[in-house]
């Protein structure tokens, strides 16, 4: 937010409130992702169940933010930085909501997995997810600090996540091929891996929004992409 406050205090309050709701919603998403990953790596069903239950909170934030944005546009006609605050809040909230959904989906699958997963798979998952968690934290910090350079960093590091996702997929595919009994767990793990990668994509979307919010410019050019995804048909 700009340093000088608005002449109309209630308008100032409404924008501040919108901003703090995004930050709170982002905090819940960070927590959901953290717990979902912990649940799958430490086999903690309580964590998984609480992620599933708490997703409702994140959904409610999305509805609240949408209402606040509609009210601001209808009643305040925001301009310039205020307009960008308002519009990006709407878009960021919908990416955060998806992140919440994906964390919930990971948790649902966690509850269906067997107790003992091979260590190499867990390690591969942790490598992707710790990067994604770091991204999510960075982009929420970038939003809070109105930092376009931090947003740019997050945007650029999506490539690494794509590469780690592919490595993790390869491990899971190997695991699937080892034994027919691995079919259930392996399939869930493929989806879990994909979900984590999708969360990374949503943080990249948020990075684009933060960059636009701060600079008024769109991040141009193609998104950095990792190596092409490995398809299951490979030898």
């Amino acid at each position, binding site marked *: 937010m*700009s340093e*000088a*406050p*608005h*002449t*109309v205090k209630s*308008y100032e309050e409404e924008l501040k409130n919108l901003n703090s709701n995004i930050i709170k919603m982002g905090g819940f998403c960070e927590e959901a992702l953290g717990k979902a990953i912990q649940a799958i790596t430490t086999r903690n069903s309580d964590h998984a169940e609480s992620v599933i239950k708490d997703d409702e909170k994140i959904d409610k934030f999305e509805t609240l933010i949408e209402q606040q944005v509609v009210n601001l546009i209808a009643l305040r*006609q*925001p*301009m*310039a*930085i*205020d*307009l*960008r605050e308002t519009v990006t809040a709407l878009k960021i909230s919908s990416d955060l909501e998806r992140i919440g959904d994906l964390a919930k989906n990971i948790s649902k699958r966690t509850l269906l997995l067997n107790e003992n997963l091979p260590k190499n798979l867990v390690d591969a998952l942790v490598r992707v997810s710790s990067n994604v968690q770091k991204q999510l934290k960075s982009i929420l910090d970038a939003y809070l600090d109105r930092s376009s350079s931090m947003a740019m960093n997050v945007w650029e590091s999506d490539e690494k996540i794509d590469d780690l996702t592919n490595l993790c997929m390869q491990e899971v595919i190997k695991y699937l091929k080892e034994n027919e009994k691995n079919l259930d767990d392996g399939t869930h793990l493929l989806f879990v891996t994909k979900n984590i990668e999708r969360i990374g994509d949503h943080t990249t979307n948020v990075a684009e929004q933060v960059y636009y919010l701060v*600079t*008024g*410019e769109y991040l141009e050019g193609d998104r950095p992409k990792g190596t092409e995804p490995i398809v299951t048909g490979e030898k």
Partner: protein
Amino acid sequence: MRKNGVNMIKISAKNVDVFYGKKQALFNINLDIEENQVTALIGPSGCGKSTFLRCLNRMNDVIDICKVQGEIVINDFNINDKGCDVVRLREKIGMVFQKPNPFPKTLYENISYGPTIHGMAQSKQEMDEIVETSLKKAALWEEVKDRLHEPGTGLSGGQQQRLCIARAISVQPEVILMDEPCSALDPIATAQIEELIDELKKEHTIIIVTHSMAQAARVSQRTGFFHLGELIEHGSTDKIFKNPDNTKTQDYITGRFG
């Protein structure tokens, strides 16, 4: 008129300073006004936007203590030159004011007055045509065609303002200056004037001073922001309202001023 995808410059203000007695009201204004575009001038009260507007048809001449320096070039001619014929100038550059100010005469006479003094009609028939065309362009014809010989002051506020616009365009000006033309009108009359502005820009270059930021955003393609007698920023309207370069502009349009 566009040449190579770039709008032609209709008016070019160069290093314009204005003084009221010892007090300087405008400081070194440099602004190009594009042809067949609507340029909005915004800024807080006393910022000099109306003073600047009044420079463009030398309305400041009527104020004894007012002194204008610098060049205002219209069609390659500096209107501040001694040789400038102010009556011809105001034929080319019409003006519409904040409060509708029809002459206390009939509708017909309100429109025919300008064309008469400029000798634009040779016959009654030609004058009838000018009156009809002007009222049609001002989107007033249908409402008043059966009462052309009634007093102009008998119309509603919005109709009176459109009458004043019809009066302004009756002498086929190249430029129309509007000083808060909607501030005395209701939202419906305002929308009609805004629609009219959109139409008129096809044939005229329009400069509008407005206190309504939303109106500036709606009607103009170019916007200039004045503050304390300086032109702080000017550029395309969408740039000014989405992502202005200057902090003062941003503070003003977002309501963070003072």
